[in-house]
């Protein structure tokens, strides 16, 4: 995205020569007028942006500087809530879980999405087109429904898993038990999102000039070399973009654990992820000050994580350059 913004900014920035000539011919007042009209177009969005992004962020920060005690009432505690959050085992365990989850989930998900997109780019039969739609289908299904469905499929009473294991006279593993919950949740998320990422990569692959493949073939490259030496590098900016999305989404993990919590026999605790913890602090304990601090702290964690990621990938995707 930063890459894209750089491109976009480059394109629309008036060339120095153009700017000079504009000044010389004294078009300044008309430029100011054009700027005002531009703001009329941006205005409605800007209002929403201020009301529902800037104001909540500022207010969350303000709230997070206070604490509410039963005896003392609301008092200013400065960084107290943040000190508390970063020493709170519930918050830290939640952050550690989502960070670990992101580190394992995102590479696996990317590998699957990229592999499917490459295969679909290479074959254009009816079946391939059918497969493309079916892999994408879960994106049209709300995450709540996806989580409910997998909850049923994992269920020892409804689900097919136990029946499958019965064939071998075995007990099916419960995929939401403490040892399996990591994989169980990962499966739900991959099912839900891999198709969406696949479609973005596929769209980028379709945009590559096919004459490159012809040239590579003439030079004796085999299909694998074409895939990994030409196609993958050319869609790397799409890969970076969706990895950023996946990272932001994973660190905010909420819907799936919230839905599966009730059928997990207590594995998924109310502080399982930072967002779940903030939600419960706010709505179960009416502790809005601390919940705001957690939300804000989580926002900071996400921002740092995204920044580190963009920094690490700056060469390949020409980010921050």
């Amino acid at each position: 995205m930063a890459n894209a913004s750089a491109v976009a900014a480059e394109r629309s920035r008036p060339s120095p020569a153009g700017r000079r000539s504009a000044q010389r011919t004294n078009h300044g007042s008309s430029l100011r007028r054009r700027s005002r009209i531009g703001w009329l177009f941006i205005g409605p969005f800007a209002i929403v942006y201020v009301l529902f992004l800037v104001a909540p962020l500022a207010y969350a920060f303000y709230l997070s500087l206070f604490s509410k005690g039963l005896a003392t009432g609301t008092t200013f505690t400065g960084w107290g809530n943040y000190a508390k959050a970063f020493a709170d085992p519930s918050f830290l365990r939640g952050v550690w879980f989502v960070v670990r989850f992101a580190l394992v989930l995102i590479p696996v998900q990317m590998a699957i999405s990229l592999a499917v997109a490459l295969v679909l780019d290479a074959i254009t039969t009816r079946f391939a087109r059918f497969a493309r739609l079916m892999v994408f289908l879960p994106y049209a299904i709300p995450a709540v429904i996806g989580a409910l469905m997998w909850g049923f499929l994992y269920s020892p009473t409804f689900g097919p898993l136990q029946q499958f294991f019965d064939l071998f006279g075995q007990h099916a593993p419960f995929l939401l038990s403490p040892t399996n919950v990591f994989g169980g949740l990962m499966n739900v998320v991959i099912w839900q999102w891999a198709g969406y990422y696949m479609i973005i990569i596929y769209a980028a692959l379709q945009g590559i000039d096919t004459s490159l493949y012809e040239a590579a073939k003439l030079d004796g490259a085999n299909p694998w070399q074409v895939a990994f030496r030409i196609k993958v590098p050319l869609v790397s900016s799409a890969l970076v973009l969706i990895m950023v999305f996946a990272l932001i989404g994973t660190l905010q993990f909420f819907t799936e654990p919230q839905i599966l919590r009730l059928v997990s026999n207590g594995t998924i605790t109310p502080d399982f992820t930072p967002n779940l913890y903030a939600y419960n602090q706010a709505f179960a304990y009416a502790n809005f000050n601390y919940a705001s601090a957690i939300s804000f702290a989580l926002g900071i964690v996400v921002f740092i994580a995204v920044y580190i990621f963009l920094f690490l990938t700056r060469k390949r995707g020409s980010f921050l350059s």
Partner: protein
Amino acid sequence: MTAARIAPKDLADAQVTPRHKPRRPGRRALPYLFLGTLVVYFLTPIWWLFVASTKDVGGLFNGSAGALWFDKNFALVPNLSDLFTYDGGIYLRWLGNSLFYALAGGLGATILAVLAGYGFAKFRIRGRNFFFALLLGSVMVPLTALVIPTFVLMSRLNLTDTIWAVILPSLLNPFGVYLMQVYTADAVPDELLDAARVDGAGEFRTFFQVAVPQLRPAFITVMLLSVVGCWNNYFLPLAMLSNTHLFPITVGLGLWQGQASANNSGGHSLWGLIIIGSLISVIPLVIAFLSMQKYWRGGLAVGSLK
């Protein structure tokens, strides 16, 4: 199921520009095996949902043919009538609410995005680079982190537990603005706009009559993404609403699931309702996606290539 039935018809016109490549049958077994396995994996939960929707309570728990095949008692119709009559037909109300929130929030966010994208792309605004960088930075702000503070702000204004609490925050879609900006910069030539202005068209007439028609593919993409975002939204309405009559379908089904798990013995009929309720609720969006795929696929490429 529904998707599978619709798919072949759509597949015929799906490929806009088929790329011709020499096909070598025989060497293609591995990719087909790979795709086939994935199709099975991605369809299994949906197939299970459809099969389970046709079972009565007994069939659900001790079905004669297992979890992935139909029970001898085909109870789809009684299940449907249960679903639509339970608790005074509240399910239909939830479905209607979801549709309303998704269309109002999605359409509103799209209109704001088209206007702002055009403003950023086609006007020399002072401090433009700064504001655009701010916009891109806010794509990275975790939106769920905003839910709790927005809730507290809204409750100060006595707006929680109203439809506005769900619709207004949904109008914020920075990524949509970014997509529209990139697309507008490419798809609407400055010469065309200048020509319209020289002919005496005002700025707004130029926008509506010259720019908007060129922006249709991006408009539909951003609209689909925003509508899906609103339709899928769970955290925001969960936090904002407590009146069950205002719930969208996601929060409603979550509520039923909570009731069903809290009461394991008497909750069986509710499990059946959740299953068929889930099935019915996925149909509208699946149809929308399958029938509009040639629009959104083009638009997604815009976002990823630049």
